[in-house]
């Protein structure tokens, strides 16, 4: 069965930890992780609640495959109502934390209420306890990790925590685990901070032994690993170049937004690309990229581990940044780099370290900073607001200085922590926020790549590439190439990707496997591990059910079809140059069809028939 069938309920108001049986009826419909935790959230939390109030809950959830030997099966998600968007939020992370939670015997932890003083949760197998966290409040995520490891004297303890950015109220703060893996988006770290919960430290030594069909499990997971190894993307491309290989691709096809999406195409892209990361630096002869690293159980190992040039201005007096750490991934490199016009690889790597050290989402941050830069250029924001920083596109110095303010929420850092929507509203230029439902865009321009625009507009957690990564097909030809500037067939593509992703997330697997795996590779692994019938069809239906459930949560929270929209800039300002010159996103051509194939009304609401079909 491979669920532990047990969840831990932590009442932060009362300071209690209680073990509770997992609702297996729900597990059979929603599998685990994203799906199952969203079900719990939907059942237990008023969708209209204040995301940062005591009535919101925060769930850390694993999938049934998490902690097994299936490739990439180490993932967990943080599920809550997000403060950046007000929508349901689910942020997925790798590293080792999720598997450890499972080894301790828990499928998920539900945090409810709010502690009146800083606390952290320590889980050692069956034993769970809230402890006074006043000594770690105010510490970075890295310091917190070190302190808790020293306290429990166990190098194998795994820690998920928030940094100072969350404490300072930044609305896109992340939960950092294992020092450089993040449940990054939608401000799930901010919710954790609002509950006065600083960290969760887990040590599990019970293991997972209850695989439903062991022979079928090893057969299907071994076969899956062979497919990953033989696939050019997952077997060679990702381990060698990581996600950053996309920088030149997306720039090359006219899909790389720059300068707050005012432009498409960034001349400095190649300086911050995977190819540049692998190049020896002139200063010390070493490349930015030190090695590739895997998350728990992952046989792909796409993670970048990098170092900053010790003599670079950003770190030269800061030896704590002279070692290796989690390096640039594509989305971060785009948001921190192309969108702000900064092509200084060392500066980006340093700021990326800060994203991990203090826990904030580089996508939302980079985009927010880019919006601020555009307003600075327009004279709406001045050095009076920024505390003297010349917030110009392309200035690495300004970029580094602004980030250091954001970390602790000092001065202009407080404004930057609002996210682009609130920042742009504050300075009277709401149209300059490149966001959907309040969450900033990732690294693909919806004008140059049409389908991803529809996905952004309909993504349940606000703009997000990871809800339905149609770029795989539209640009990368996976599984088949579709024309990036066409809208035909895109609603179908978006729906298929969204539903499949929801299922993959809910299993505890990494979405990157789908560059090589189809549902016919994935379903047998789930089916072997779990009781119940997890055929391809049932898996896809569960994915669709999860998507619709998230939609219903948002609907109840007050979202309507009017929120399925893109900023005017992307619908009206045509791309000025390059291979996609003249393009705007044609959302209007795609959205009605999308609603239709989803079985939603023209107002974007799942019909009674659809809800019934999906048992919702």
């Amino acid at each position: 069965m491979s669920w532990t069938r047990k969840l831990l309920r932590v009442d932060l108001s009362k300071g209690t930890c209680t073990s509770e049986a997992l609702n297996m009826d729900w597990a059979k419909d929603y599998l685990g992780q994203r799906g199952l935790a969203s079900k719990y959230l939907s059942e237990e939390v008023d969708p209209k609640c204040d995301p940062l109030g005591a009535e919101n809950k925060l769930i850390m959830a694993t999938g049934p495959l998490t902690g097994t030997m299936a490739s990439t099966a180490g993932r967990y998600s943080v599920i809550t109502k997000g403060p950046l968007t007000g929508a349901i939020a689910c942020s997925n992370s790798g590293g080792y934390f999720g598997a450890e939670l499972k080894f301790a015997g828990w499928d998920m932890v539900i945090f409810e209420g709010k502690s009146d003083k800083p606390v952290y949760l320590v889980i050692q197998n069956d034993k769970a306890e809230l402890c006074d966290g006043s000594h770690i409040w105010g510490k970075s995520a890295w310091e917190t990790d070190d302190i808790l490891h020293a306290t429990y004297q166990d190098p194998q303890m795994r820690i998920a925590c928030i940094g100072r950015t969350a404490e300072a109220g930044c609305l896109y703060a992340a939960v950092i685990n294992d020092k450089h893996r993040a449940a990054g988006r939608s401000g799930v770290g901010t919710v954790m901070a609002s509950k006065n919960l600083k960290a969760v430290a887990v040590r599990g030594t019970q293991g997972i032994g209850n695989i439903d069909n062991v022979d079928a499990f090893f057969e299907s997971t071994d076969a899956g690993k062979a497919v990953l190894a033989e696939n050019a993307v997952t077997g060679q491309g990702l381990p060698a170049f990581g996600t950053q290989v996309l920088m030149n691709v997306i720039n090359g096809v006219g899909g790389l937004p720059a300068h707050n999406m005012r432009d498409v195409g960034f001349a400095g892209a190649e300086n911050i690309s995977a190819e540049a990361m692998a190049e020896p630096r002139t200063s010390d002869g070493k490349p930015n990229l030190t090695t590739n690293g895997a998350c728990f159980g992952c046989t792909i190992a796409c993670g970048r581990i990098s170092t900053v040039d010790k003599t670079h201005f950003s770190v030269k007096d800061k030896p704590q940044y002279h070692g290796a750490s989690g390096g640039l991934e594509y989305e971060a490199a785009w948001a921190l780099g192309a969108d702000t016009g900064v092509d200084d690889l060392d500066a980006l790597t340093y700021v990326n370290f800060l994203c991990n050290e203090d826990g904030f989402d580089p996508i939302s941050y980079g985009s927010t900073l880019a919006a601020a830069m555009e307003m600075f250029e327009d004279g709406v924001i001045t050095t009076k607001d920024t505390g003297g920083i010349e917030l110009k596109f392309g200035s690495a110095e300004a970029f580094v200085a602004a980030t250091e303010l954001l970390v602790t929420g000092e001065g202009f850092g407080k404004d930057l922590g609002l996210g682009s929507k609130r920042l742009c509203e504050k300075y009277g230029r709401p149209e300059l926020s490149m966001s959907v439902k309040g969450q900033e865009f990732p690294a693909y321009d919806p004008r140059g790549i049409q389908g991803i625009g529809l996905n952004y507009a309909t993504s349940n957690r606000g703009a997000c590439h990871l809800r339905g990564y149609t770029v795989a097909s539209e640009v990368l030809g996976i599984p088949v190439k579709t024309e990036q500037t066409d809208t035909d067939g895109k609603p179908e593509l978006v729906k298929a990707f969204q539903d499949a992703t929801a299922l993959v997330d809910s299993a505890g697997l990494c979405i990157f496997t789908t560059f090589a795996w189809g549902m016919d590779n994935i379903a047998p692994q789930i089916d072997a591990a779990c009781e119940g019938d997890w055929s391809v069809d049932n898996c896809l239906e569960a994915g669709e059910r999860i998507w619709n459930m998230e939609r219903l949560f948002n609907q109840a929270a007050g979202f309507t079809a009017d929120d399925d929209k893109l900023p005017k800039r992307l619908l009206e300002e045509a791309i000025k140059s390059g291979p996609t010159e003249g393009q705007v996103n044609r959302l209007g051509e795609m959205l009605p069809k999308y609603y239709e194939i989803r079985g939603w009304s023209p107002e974007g609401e799942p019909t009674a028939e659809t809800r019934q079909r999906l048992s919702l």
Partner: protein
Amino acid sequence: MQKSLNIDPGKCTGCLQCEMACSYEHTGTFNPSRSYIKVFTFHHEGRFAPYTCTQCEEAWCQRACPVDAISVDMATGAKVIADDKCVGCKVCTIACPFGTVNYSQSTGKVVKCDLCGGDPQCASACPTDAITYVDADWTGYDKMMASASKSLPSAEVTA
């Protein structure tokens, strides 16, 4: 030809498939905390180093065992613990200068790498060939022994 585990830390990505395979082989569960091979993460250096018993000639553990519970598997050269003889006194855990014999509180016995009887599951599970099971005269083995011997505490020098 006797074989030995050859470990190349440069190829390790830290995925822990080896730990899961080892623990599954020996306990029937995916449980890295009970794996006999451990991957150490060197965050600062950006390195991962799998580490387990080298089945060293000196057999410090075997010599220290007060009840003859550790013997050499003649087929593989592995120093193997006989569970029915081990009383759990832990003397071998402090005698092994490589730190690769550990006490298991759940079983009350000590545990160490036994080369899975000649089919080491860690090597089979490793996706990057960071762990391979190769002929003992392979140069990698020498390299591994050399690195081990750099630190090999020697109670005596044989003339």
